[in-house]
């Protein structure tokens, strides 16, 4: 009688059903950032948009308006150069450039690495100005309290459905460069309808950093969120 083997048959395939989230490492670090921010009550805002829609100009404008009322700092991500941080620093607030060296988005790890450069105890509002890109940054939680997406009037009002994930995960859409509305074929109503079909909770403000339109409304929104965060 031949001994029956108790070993698993050779050549078979074992499967492990894993369901591991590919972004697990990112989300783990994002949670750490959230906890850090909770300790000091610092409001963290992730600002996203296409390249050239006015993120840095909005950072400058917001700094000018609010720097006497609250402590603001900015970290800004770009593929190369220190240009944006230089521009923001001219307003007199702390700004730190994160050079991604070709990476098209910021990841939680990059934020966490530079966090100790900031005196969070004395910062009420910390902006992350993300890499200009409506695609990849949408998948990466940076531990932010709110995600704000700029949508410039020069970009065309058909963008929300083209880049749905970004608008689905945003809390606020700022229709920027509103001063150009008389000159461009852009409908605020159409872009709002399109975006709110994706995300019915999305708030919308029409804004121009040059003409000041909507800037007070935006600053009030920020102050209100800071108040809520401080509890």
């Amino acid at each position, binding site marked *: 009688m031949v001994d029956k083997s108790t070993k698993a048959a050779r050549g078979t*395939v074992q499967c492990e059903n894993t369901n591991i989230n590919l972004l697990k490492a990112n989300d783990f670090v994002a949670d750490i950032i959230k906890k850090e921010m909770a300790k000091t009550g610092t409001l963290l805002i992730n600002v996203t948009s296409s390249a050239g829609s006015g993120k840095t100009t909005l950072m400058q404008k917001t700094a000018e308006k609010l720097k006497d009322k609250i402590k603001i700092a900015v970290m800004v991500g770009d593929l190369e150069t220190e240009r944006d941080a230089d521009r923001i620093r001219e307003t007199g607030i702390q700004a730190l450039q994160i050079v991604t060296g070709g990476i098209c988005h910021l990841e939680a790890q990059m934020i966490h690495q530079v966090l100790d450069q900031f005196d969070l105890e004395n910062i009420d509002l910390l902006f992350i100005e993300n890499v200009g890109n409506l695609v990849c940054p949408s998948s990466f939680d940076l531990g932010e309290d709110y995600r704000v997406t700029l949508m410039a009037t020069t970009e065309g009002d058909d963008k929300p459905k083209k880049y749905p994930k970004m608008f*689905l995960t945003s809390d606020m859409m700022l229709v920027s460069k509103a001063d150009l509305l008389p000159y461009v074929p852009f409908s605020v109503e159409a872009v709002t309808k399109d975006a709110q*079909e994706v995300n019915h909770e999305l708030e919308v403000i029409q804004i121009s950093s040059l003409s000041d339109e909507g800037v007070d409304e935006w600053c009030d929104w920020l102050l209100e969120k800071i108040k809520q965060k401080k509890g």
Partner: protein
Amino acid sequence: MHETSIVNSIFRTLEQEFEVEKLNNMKAIHLKVGILSNIEPRLLYNAYEAFHMTNPIYQKVKLEIEMTELKIKCEICEHITNVKNYRFICDNCKKPSKNVIQGEEMLIHKVEFDD
């Protein structure tokens, strides 16, 4: 757009999850990715091939990608809707919802090992 960093994170994740010996017998990786994940399968396959040129140890491991459709579950009537044209509105009660239950995932769904 960031397919190469996704391929890197697949292997980084698996190296954290499994022992080296086990990984040496890895045969296939099955991903489940939603259409909202911004992953383009063809580009990911290409990035996967390119990864092996500099990291030949996983050369024999196959990659399978399953795309999942976008579904929402209504918070009010619990009806499940297949989202078409990115209109996040319940088919049944016509109320908007962003309660996505499928279509956002980026999962290593299953890993196959040779005995």
